[in-house]
C-alpha cells in the first residue's frame, strides 16, 4: 500500500544559515535497548499556560493511556499518562497552570500493563479520537507554537521527519518496522485539514507513501533544515489568519498505532549522547521519561534537547528526542526568565554571525531589537509570527547581550495572542 514516490520528483530545499553543527560523540544509528524509567512526568513547560482540571489525585493507580487531566478552557483536550503506575505528584505553577505531573511505575512492568485496549470507536471522527485519547497535545500551531484549539482547522500540517544532527535518532531507523503505523498516522492527519500534509525529510530513503494530499519534501543543509519553522517558511508562510500545525514523526507513528490497535503508544526512540556520554546510543523509552533513569548516569548533567538549545532537566521534554549528557561542572545558566533578562547587561553587537544565524528570510538584528524592547508591532512586521523559541536559539547563542531571545519572543507572541483573542 505504501508505494514510495520517486525521489527525483520531490521538491527539495537546501537550507543555508543557522547554527553550526556541534558534533561530538554521535551514537550508532540502531536502537540499542529499551530503557524503562522509574518515573515520568508531564511538564507545564510543554503546554504553555495550560490550566489543568485533574481527573486523578495523588496516590491513584493509573494505566497507560488513562486521562490524567484536561485543559480547563478546552475540556475536550485530554492529557494521558504514558506509563502505568502511581500518580505521585501534581503541582501547579503560576496562575494555576500545570507545573508537573509525575507518575512512578511502582514496580509494575509498564510494558505488560501497556496493552490496555480501550473503547476505541471507529465511528468517532479522527479529531475526537485524537482529542480524547491524548494525542492532541502532539500538535503545535504556527504562529504561536501552542496546542491547537479543538475546533481549529489548519491550512496545512507539517510532519517533521528531518534531523540534521548526527546525535539525533535517524527517522529512517526509528520508523523501520512502524512504517505501516506511520502511513495510518499520515492518513489520519489528512483528515484534519483540507490542505496538504507535508512530510519534511532528508534525501535518500522515502518515508512517504503516495497518498491524497500528502506531499514529501526533502531538506538538506545547515541544522536549521531540521526546524519546522524553516519548513513552514519555505512551503506555507504563516500569518495571523493563516495557521498551520506541526508534529513530530514519532507522534505520527503513535497516532497510527492508536488508530490501528486502540492502544496509546507512548514509546519513543531517544538518543543519549553528548560529550559526557560514556557510550552514546539510541534507546526506546517513553514520553517524559526521567533522564537520570534512562541514561543510567549519575555523574553527568542531562540536557533535554540538543547540545545547542537543550536545557538541564529532570524529565525528557514532550518534543525532544535527544538527551545530551554534559559534564556537571558546566557553568549553569541563570534560571528563570527574569534572571536572564536582568543578566542581559551588554549591548547587542551586530556581527555577521548573527546575520547568518537565521535560515528564514527575516532581518535578524532589527528583530532582536524589537524583541528586546517588546515591540510586538515591529516584531510582526519583521516576521516574528513565523518563529518559535527553537528557531531563535541560534540568535541567543550569537548575541553578546546574553539575552534569551526565545523568552523574549514568547512574551511578544503572548502579547499578540491576547490582542487577537
Amino acid at each position, binding site marked *: 500500500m505504501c508505494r514510495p514516490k520517486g525521489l527525483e520528483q520531490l521538491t527539495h530545499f537546501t537550507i543555508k544559515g543557522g547554527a553550526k553543527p556541534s558534533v561530538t560523540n554521535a551514537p550508532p544509528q540502531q536502537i540499542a535497548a529499551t530503557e524503562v524509567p522509574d518515573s515520568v512526568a508531564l511538564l507545564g513547560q510543554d503546554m504553555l499556560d495550560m490550566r489543568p482540571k485533574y481527573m486523578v489525585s495523588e496516590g491513584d493507580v493509573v494505566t497507560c493511556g488513562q486521562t490524567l487531566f484536561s485543559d480547563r478552557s478546552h475540556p475536550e483536550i485530554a492529557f494521558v499518562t504514558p506509563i502505568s503506575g502511581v500518580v505521585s505528584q501534581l503541582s501547579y505553577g503560576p496562575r494555576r497552570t500545570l507545573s508537573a505531573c509525575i507518575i512512578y511505575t511502582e514496580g509494575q512492568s509498564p510494558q505488560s500493563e501497556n496493552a490496555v485496549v480501550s473503547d476505541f470507536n471507529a465511528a468517532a471522527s479522527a479529531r475526537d479520537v485524537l482529542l480524547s485519547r491524548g494525542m492532541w497535545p502532539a500538535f503545535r500551531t504556527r504562529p504561536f507554537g501552542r496546542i491547537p484549539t479543538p475546533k481549529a482547522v489548519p491550512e496545512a500540517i507539517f510532519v517533521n521527519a528531518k534531523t540534521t544532527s548526527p546525535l539525533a535518532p535517524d527517522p529512517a531507523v526509528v520508523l523501520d518496522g512502524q512504517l505501516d503505523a506511520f502511513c495510518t498516522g499520515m492518513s489520519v492527519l489528512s483528515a484534519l485539514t483540507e490542505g496538504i500534509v507535508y512530510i519534511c525529510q532528508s534525501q535518500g530513503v522515502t518515508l512517504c507513501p503516495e497518498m491524497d494530499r500528502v506531499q514529501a519534501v526533502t531538506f538538506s543543509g545547515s541544522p536549521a533544515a531540521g526546524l519546522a519553522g524553516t519548513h513552514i517558511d519555505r512551503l506555507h508562510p504563516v500569518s495571523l489568519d493563516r495557521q498551520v500545525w506541526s508534529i513530530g514523526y514519532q507522534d505520527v507513528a503513535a497516532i497510527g498505532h492508536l488508530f490501528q490497535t486502540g492502544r496509546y503508544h507512548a514509546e519513543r526512540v531517544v538518543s543519549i549522547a553528548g560529550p559526557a556520554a560514556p557510550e552514546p546510543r539510541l534507546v526506546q523509552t517513553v514520553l517524559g521519561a526521567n533522564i537520570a533513569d534512562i541514561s543510567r548516569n549519575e555523574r553527568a548533567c542531562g540536557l533535554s534537547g540538543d547540545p545547542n538549545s537543550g536545557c538541564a532537566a529532570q524529565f525528557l521534554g514532550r518534543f525532544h528526542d535527544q538527551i545530551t549528557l554534559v559534564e556537571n561542572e558546566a557553568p549553569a545558566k541563570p534560571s528563570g526568565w527574569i534572571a536572564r533578562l536582568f543578566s542581559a547587561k551588554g549591548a547587542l*553587537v551586530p*556581527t*555577521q554571525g548573527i546575520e547568518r544565524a537565521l535560515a528564514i528570510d527575516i*532581518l535578524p538584528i*532589527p528583530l532582536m531589537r524589537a524583541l528586546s524592547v517588546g515591540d510586538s508591532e515591529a516584531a510582526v512586521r*519583521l516576521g516574528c509570527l513565523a518563529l518559535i523559541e527553537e528557531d531563535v536559539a541560534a540568535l541567543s547563542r550569537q548575541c553578546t547581550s546574553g539575552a534569551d531571545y526565545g523568552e523574549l519572543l514568547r512574551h511578544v507572541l503572548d502579547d499578540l495572542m491576547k490582542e487577537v483573542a
Partner: protein
Amino acid sequence: MALRSLSRMSLLLVAALLMPLIVTTFEKPLQFAPHLCVALVTVLFWEGSFAILRRKPVSFHGITTALIVCVLIPRDLTLWQLVFALSLGVVLGELVFGGRGFSFLNAATVTLSLLIFSFPQVELAAPSQTLALATLPGAVMLLAFGLISSRVLIGCVLGAAAVLASGSHQIDAVSTLTALAFGLVFLTAYPLTAAATNPGRWFYGAFAGGLIVVLSQGATLNTEAVVFGSLIASIFAPLIDHLVMLTHARRRRARHV
C-alpha cells in the same frame, strides 16, 4: 566564529589596532607616548566616573576609542586639546547613552570631529601607505570574526569610486585607498554604528564613500572628510535600516497573498 561578549569585541579591536599603533609609534616617536598615555588616562577616568555614577562595573571599552584617536591626531596637537576633545567625545558620543553599544555614534568619530570643529588650525594626520598596509591584517581579522562587514567596505570603496568618476577627476587608486583604509575599517565600518541589515550595509557603505569624496572637495581624500563622512553616515544608518525594513516587510507581505 562567535563573539559572545562585548569585552571580547573590544579586545579584538585592540588586537586589530596593534599594527597601526606600532606604525604610528615609528612615524611620530616623540609625540606618540604622551598622546597615548594622556588619551588612556582620560578615557579611563570617564569610564570610571560613569561606572561609579551608574553603579555598574567599570568597562574598558574606551581604550579602543583612545587608540583610534591616537593614530589619527596630528603630532603637534597639544595635550589639553586632546583631553578636551576626547572627554567630550567619550562622554557625549558614548557614555551618556549608557556605554558601548547603546549609542548611535562612534566615540572616536565624535572626538575627531570635535577636534576639527573646535580647533580649525588642527589638521588630522594623513595616513601613510605603511599605516594603510598595517591596517590590513587587523581588517582581515575583524572580517573573519564577522565584526565588520565586507559589504560596508566594498560599498564604501565603490561609492567613493563612483563619485570620483562622476566628478571627472583623475582617480589614483593607491592614494585613495591609502587615505581611506584606516578610517574605513575603524570608523566607517564600526559595527555598532554602521547599518545593521545586510542590504542596508551596501547603501550605508556607498553613502559614506560618496560623502567622503564630496567632503574632500577634490581628487585626494583627506582624513577630515573620512571622519565627517563616517559621522554623517552613522547618523543616517538608522534611517537606512528603517527603509530596508519597510521594503523587506512589503516583500514578506507579498509572499503571503
